[in-house]
């Protein structure tokens, strides 16, 4: 492939949405973090005269491995060992936008970064080659590179990349460059230790929580237990006199207490007596929410997401009809690092250190809450102690900025407790699903209807999206209100909660519909988003249909996947590796296959059952995510998704009581521990397709495969998460 820098645009589509954003690689504003005298062919790369290669990594590293993966991609084309590249976490710049601005989500980083990063690396390499050719007075094809060294084929002379910085800076950057033939990849597709492993195994990794600045003070915030609640009164005078307390005042989310240290702030919070106004959600509980969701099944005019064929006629002529209701609860993200952010306001400018999945959105939200101009706000990205979608929301950054604005020239770190984190999340929405299937006289699946009822993720996100995406001259209050109106306009459809419901099976009549039911509980992206519930429902129900047709669940699925080779390939691989149908005595298997964010995953789960208890013994996963840039990270991400998915499938969820979250810490919202983790096997389909995401697609098949295994073991069809045997 031959490309010229002239037409070098990064264009990207919002998956499923159709929004297309394109930016010149170099934006008008200077790229943050640039060294004097370095060779900087594009926003991502710098090479310094002392031979440091610096990569500005503009996606959030939250465990999913982009720090290693994106570095591998750009280093491969630059032709240098990724382990030699110095990675810097990038700030905000248009040159870093891929899809949805700088939001890290939807398992898109490697998928969307693949081309631009290869291009950026290849362009830099081409300029170094051109510079060397010019210095040596030889043709460019007499110059070759190997792991950071340029050599002259005629004379054998060698130069390090750093030696060529001066020359490369003077080159016309508009050179032709060629991408490597994948057969020549040295680092992509190979197993290698993660380059962030040392930092993360020595305590040297800096997460948001670890940001340290001279004179730093710590703030904690007391928020109303009820969503939408308000402060009525509090013992402000007493609190301000408590040991270590510097200031205490009300902010938009509650009462902020600033102290010399976290412990003093937290102790003071414990001695703060607040009378809360419970607000509009007082009295709301999970039972009431459940009833409202169930009512959505009867709503007369749902939004039609998919309408293929004629389900009504097919149902009328069916030999056998199945009709079921499925439920999924609210879930917290429970990142290991509780939410936090650090802000320093000086005059009309603000500097922030934030573990966020969206630095550009952070800047927009901070501008909104402080009234400062976006250009006056600098965002420093840190590592994230887990994200899973939670850190696509940046409420904590708004708190830090507002508090810091009241105490100018003093850096303020807001630290949430685990309890704060658990009770003020943007939860995976609770949902209710009505699903229907029909078999014809030959036992063939001929019709499928699935209605998804939940609150909307999009609605809550729209103001932040508008503030981030609209040009800076639009005042942020106006942008916020435009977003709010957009969210209200789309009052029936939310592609984020209904995604994944469109089954891949060749069924002639399919209808997917959606009803939004708003309860006022904040909801948001949660690892694999809509797929986390739609796949549970669809793949469990596919099993119900297979049993109704008296067919083996694997054979039944294969029948309808003949034109879906990638689904079929992962299904077949999981079936083969798991020994489907030949489980050891006392063990029972269930299967599921699902496409999520353009990757394909099939799973076979093996369980043992004892009375109403069960244990997940083994999970076999087969995955097709295109070319696996880092096979060991792909495997780790699928294992990670299995463990995360198991917590969701078997552990107690979030419940609502009197408008507030009942759970508070890991004792009552438990997560899977090492002694509960099953044996996991991950098989990767060999592929030459461009890479697709892997941070999330491993999650959706877990719950249905487990439910299907439990049905195989007991005959009980469990249609509600978490899965509890009678």
């Amino acid at each position, binding site marked *: 492939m031959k490309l010229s820098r002239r037409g070098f645009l990064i264009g990207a589509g919002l998956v499923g949405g159709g929004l297309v954003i394109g930016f010149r690689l170099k934006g008008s504003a200077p790229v943050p973090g640039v060294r004097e005298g370095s060779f900087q062919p594009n926003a991502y790369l710098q090479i310094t005269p002392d031979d440091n290669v610096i990569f500005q990594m503009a996606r959030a590293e939250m*465990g999913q491995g982009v720090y290693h993966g994106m570095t591998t991609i750009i280093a491969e084309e630059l032709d240098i060992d990724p382990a030699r590249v110095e990675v810097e976490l990038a700030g905000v710049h248009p040159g870093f936008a891929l899809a949805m601005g700088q939001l890290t989500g939807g398992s898109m980083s490697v998928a969307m970064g693949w081309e631009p990063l290869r291009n950026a690396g290849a362009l830099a390499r081409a300029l170094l080659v051109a510079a060397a050719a010019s210095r040596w007075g030889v043709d460019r094809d007499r110059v070759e590179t190997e792991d950071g060294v340029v050599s002259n084929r005629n004379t054998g002379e060698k130069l390090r990349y750093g030696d060529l910085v001066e020359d490369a800076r003077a080159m016309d950057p508009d050179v032709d460059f060629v991408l490597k033939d994948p057969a020549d990849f040295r680092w992509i597709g190979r197993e290698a230790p*993660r380059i962030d492993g040392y930092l993360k195994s020595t305590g040297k990794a800096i*997460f948001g929580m*670890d940001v340290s600045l001279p004179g730093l003070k*710590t703030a904690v915030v007391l928020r109303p237990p009820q969503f939408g609640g308000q402060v009525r009164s509090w013992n402000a005078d007493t609190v301000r006199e408590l040991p270590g307390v510097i200031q205490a005042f009300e902010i938009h989310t509650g009462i902020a207490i600033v102290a010399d240290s*976290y*412990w*003093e702030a937290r102790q003071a919070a414990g001695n703060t007596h607040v009378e809360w106004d419970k607000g509009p959600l007082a009295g709301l509980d999970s039972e009431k929410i459940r009833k409202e969701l169930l009512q959505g099944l009867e709503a007369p005019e749902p939004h039609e997401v998919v309408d293929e064929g004629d389900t009504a006629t097919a149902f009328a002529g069916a030999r056998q009809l199945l009709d079921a209701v499925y439920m999924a609860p609210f879930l917290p993200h429970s990142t290991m*690092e509780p939410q936090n952010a650090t802000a320093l306001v000086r005059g009309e400018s603000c500097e922030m250190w934030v573990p966020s999945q969206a630095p550009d959105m952070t800047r927009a939200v901070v501008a909104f809450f402080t009234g400062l101009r976006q250009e006056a706000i600098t965002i420093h990205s840190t590592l994230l102690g887990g994200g*899973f979608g939670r850190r696509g929301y940046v409420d904590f950054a708004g708190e830090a900025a507002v508090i810091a604005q009241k105490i100018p020239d003093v850096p303020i770190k807001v630290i949430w407790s685990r309890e704060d984190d658990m009770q003020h999340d943007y939860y995976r929405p609770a949902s209710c699903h009505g699903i229907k299937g029909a078999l014809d006289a030959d036992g063939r699946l001929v019709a499928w209807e699935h209605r998804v009822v939940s609150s909307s993720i999009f609605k809550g996100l729209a103001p932040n999206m508008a503030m981030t995406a609209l040009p800076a001259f639009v005042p942020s209050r106006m942008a916020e209100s435009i977003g709010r109106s957009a969210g209200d306009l789309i009052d029936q459809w939310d592609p984020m909660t209904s995604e994944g419901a469109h089954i891949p099976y060749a069924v002639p009549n399919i209808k997917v519909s959606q009803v939004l039911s708003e309860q006022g509980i904040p909801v948001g992206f949660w690892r694999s988003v809509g797929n986390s519930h739609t796949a549970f429902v669809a793949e469990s129900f596919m099993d119900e249909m297979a049993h109704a047709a008296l067919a083996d669940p694997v054979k039944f699925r294969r029948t309808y996947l003949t034109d879906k080779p990638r689904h079929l390939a992962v299904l077949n691989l999981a079936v083969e590796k798991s020994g489907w149908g030949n489980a050891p005595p006392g063990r029972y298997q269930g299967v599921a296959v699902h496409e999520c964010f353009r990757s394909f995953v099939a799973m076979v789960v093996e369980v043992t059952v004892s009375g109403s208890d069960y244990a997940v013994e083994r999970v076999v996963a087969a995955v097709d995510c295109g070319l696996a840039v880092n096979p060991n990270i792909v495997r780790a991400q699928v294992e990670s998704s299995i463990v995360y998915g198991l917590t969701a499938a078997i552990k107690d969820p979030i419940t609502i009581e009197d408008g507030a979250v009942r759970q508070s810490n890991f004792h009552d919202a438990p997560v899977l521990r090492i002694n509960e983790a099953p044996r996991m096997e991950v098989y990767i389909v060999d592929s030459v397709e461009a890479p697709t995401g892997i941070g999330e697609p491993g999650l959706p098949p877990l719950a249905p495969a487990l439910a299907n295994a439990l049905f195989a073991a007991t005959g009980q069809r469990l249609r509600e998460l978490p899965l509890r045997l009678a």
Partner: protein
Amino acid sequence: MTTFQLNGQSVSVEVAADTPLLWVLRDHLQLTGTKFGCGAGLCGACTVLIDGQAGRSCTLPVVEIEGRSVTTIEGLGGDHPVQQAWVEGSVAQCGYCQTGQILGVVSLLGQNPHPDDAAIKTALSGNICRCGAYQDIIRAVHVAAGRMPPQAAEHDKEETV
């Protein structure tokens, strides 16, 4: 004033006696490798070694470690066999819990130089990894166990006595 041994050095801090060791380490001694996860001894992110044994620093009042010996991740030096196994095995995903996991393993290997899977699971059942790196953790513990110099294991054992 509380005085204790921290990573081989004597330190004294003047903080309220009920201040948890975790916050003394993080806020007063600027050692941020020890992590805050739950504040209730439920997740293990704050694990340190106290006289060679894994303990939860988030619920331990600093006054209780007067005269005792504390090792944090910073005290392992960076090339401890457990850390090497962690780096080579790409165990860390987000990495936030891993400093606590590593110290849990150092403590375990001090008492049981060649643990089987069941012993590893029991020893680490108090350390949550939300990224679910559990299988890689178990694999890396075996690698580290095979590399621990016998004298080092003995040394750790003596420390616990």
